[in-house]
């Protein structure tokens, strides 16, 4: 089957029910997307499909309905997305393992809600677990990213 990831089309030979997470990680070697729980409880595997935040561990390969964007497609160390720049500015990460998913979730939130309230942020981000507990910095970085995006 064909998959478009970060603007590049790939042909993959996988079972229909292989989760997109494992297609990305093991078949396409895109490692920014993380395995945490496998059951949509932690959000570490969050990617965008046509701009919408989805849990790739619960999305079967055959069900992918549009273009996939991973953290690597959001921005790069040389060309940071506003959300990534805010994550650097606030030094959010500790172990950092959840942060790809956190940033993808935050980017999708800000694409539909450019000025989220604290309650909006809590609602949108509550499915993304951070075992290191960096939530105060995630909240602050989402607000900074919102400001940066509005200035553009």
């Amino acid at each position, binding site marked *: 089957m064909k998959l478009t990831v970060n603007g590049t089309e790939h042909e993959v030979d996988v*079972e229909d029910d*292989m*989760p997109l*997470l*494992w297609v990305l*990680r*093991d*078949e396409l*070697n895109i*490692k*920014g*997307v*993380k*395995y*945490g*729980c*496998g*059951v949509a*409880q*932690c959000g*570490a595997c969050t990617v965008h499909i046509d701009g919408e935040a989805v849990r790739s561990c619960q999305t079967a390969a055959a069900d992918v309905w549009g273009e996939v964007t*991973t*953290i*690597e497609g*959001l*921005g*790069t*160390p040389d060309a*940071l997305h506003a959300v*990534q720049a805010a*994550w*650097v500015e606030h*030094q*959010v*990460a*500790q*172990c*950092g*393992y*959840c*942060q*790809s998913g956190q*940033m993808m979730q935050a980017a999708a939130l800000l694409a539909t809600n450019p000025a989220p309230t604290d309650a909006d*942020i*809590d*609602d949108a981000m*509550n*499915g*993304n*677990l*951070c*075992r*290191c*507990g*960096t*939530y*105060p*910095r*995630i*909240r602050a970085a989402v607000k900074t990213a919102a400001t940066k995006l509005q200035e553009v």
Partner: protein
Amino acid sequence: MSRIGKIARRTFLVGSAAVVGGVAFGYYAYKRPVSNPLLADLGEGEAALTPYVKIDSTGITLITPRADSGQGAYHVQAALIAEELDVELDQVRVDPGMPDPAYYNTALSAEAAPFRSTDDGLVADTTRGIMDAMMKFMGLQITGGSTTVPDSFEKLRLAGAVARETLKAAAAQETGANIADLKTEKGTVILPGGGTLAYTELAATAATLDPVNDVTLRDPSTWRLVGKEMERIDILAKSTGTQRYGIDFEVEGMVHASVRTSPRRGAMNGFDATTARDMRGVIDVVELSDGVAVVADNTWRAMQAVNAIDIDWAPALYPPEQADHWQALSDSFNADQQDSRVRDDGDVDAALDGAEVIEAEYRAPYLAHAPLEPISAVVQVTDDRADVWTGTQIPRFVQSNVAKLTGLDTDQVFVHVLVMGGSFGHRLEDRVVREATQIAMQIKGTPVKLTYSREEDTLQNDTRQIAMARGRGAVKDGKVEAYDLGIAMPSVVASQMGRQGLPTPGPDLQIVAGAWEQPMQIPNYRVTGYRAPGLAPVSSWRSVGASTNGFFHDVFLDELIHTAGADPMEERLRLCWHDPSRKTLEAVAEMSGWGSDLGPNKGRGVAFCLSFGVPTAEVVEVSNIDGAIKIDKVWVAAEVGRVIDPINFENIVQGGINWALGHAMNSEITYSDGMAEQRNYYDFEGMRMAQSPEIFVRGLENGDTVRGMGEPMVPPAAAALSNAIFAATGQRIREMPMAKHIDFV
């Protein structure tokens, strides 16, 4: 001069040895020198300056032997070297190096000695020294116990200084300049005329010189990095998805494996893998000593196939049902099971005799570590070497265990430590490496990556200890007069070291850690530890014994203070004799506006715990919203001697508070049919964003010993929450998870 200065001079006399193409520095001045691990693979033109700095023509590498599980340990270690070496953090490579006895952990052994960290007396100091020598003898390169900063603080700066001065000597020899006229900056030596020589250009010459050992550490007032806000060296990679973790590691020709071992932590009677063998991508099914693994061409296929195996598990060797675990603890409060009574002030029995005795019982459950990155390891075994790539806090144990399993010598086993997606103590165990090695031995030459499913990670977790405490106390004239606390739990140290085949004779002070050594002057004051053997396997979980005992000790103290009618802050201050500890209480009182009117349906609680040498005071403020508790704000003041990086410090403390409060509210591991009943984050949640409070942090620098802050914020947090809930509702919660007794928003 502080004590740490004396210890450093005693243990860090730097010697040198000339070798082909280079020189190495870094002998310790105990009974015999420790060999330098960098000598083994020194190339032509390379100079290894101390075991912590390596310079060749291509660049400068700082060796950071303490593992980084997410708390910025690599960053802190690199900053300490860079401070004296005069390099910028963006100029250097950071490498954890290969496991070696030279990287033994001095600070961890000091905390194992049976003396309070507040005790500077001769006997305490001497004993710490003996423990230190033992640790060196055993070569324990362990990351844990919040010891990275204390162990590294002087050692790494000295390493940087010796390297810097030797490079200056090399520049003097090459140019004929007077050393006193040379300066250093940004990885270069600046010559009197303004010209510069890069350290990388001087490496070969530096290799021919004796090391310059006569160095003086710079005055803190001149520090460029330490104590200042820095950008963590890994922050860009971790903000762009480009950081690679153990689970991401790939090597040519690698296959993927998944495993199931007994959820009852015992034996396997048999299995039927007929279905699994025919599944797509399956390469092999491998029987292990206590389970079975599938090797496949993809992680998911391996997991699917291993789950399709029908396995018959033998019974657990511990009680199958949770109620039996509680009963075992309850039955442990007796003289035969007494493990220690290292605090026994005044005459508790006499003080309680005839007094109105306040009694209470407390419980804390088993807890999983559940770092977000599931456990994994890549192992390749050939006839003459084994390579292990994994995120681990115990590389020396890993090396030794792989050598035993494969029959290779330890110097044929190469452990490559990878970045960890969290640990919280989980990676102080090495089960995954042993299993991956067993698989790799069946397919020699082929690298095997073993990745646990989240469910396997939860089922095989050596959890935090379960614990129970019983308090008896009395008050007199508005003051706490008698305090008697008994604590029962399994021995974490015996369980954990037992899995490494190490005996642990004598009492386990973790059973009473966070309780017995509190700097409180209660006239009649006793803390007794009771050992409960035969329960489920347990291991070090962030703050270890103090994670349960900080809760028990301080909530019971709070109950007595309320009974006495005293103010919780004032009475703790009155009881506390240790000035740096008092200052943490005074700081949180000021930060939180203690004593001001909060209005209806709100409450504040204070708690204090000294653990890992760090006095930490916390205030929690809660709202009671129609019978459900919301944690609004938390204030933390901790005495750490020196804050290395204020931004990282704040982040780690905030995270540790979320860690402690999330589990205190929501989480437990329970057993039924001999297995943990929880499987994944839907039934073991911890803290999520919506429950996460505002957290205000202050690091105090009044002490003369530098301490690590990976754990000490944890022990007081649950107590402060329980105390705040009591203040807001009048309901006293004596058991975690607290959600069993009260609703949370």
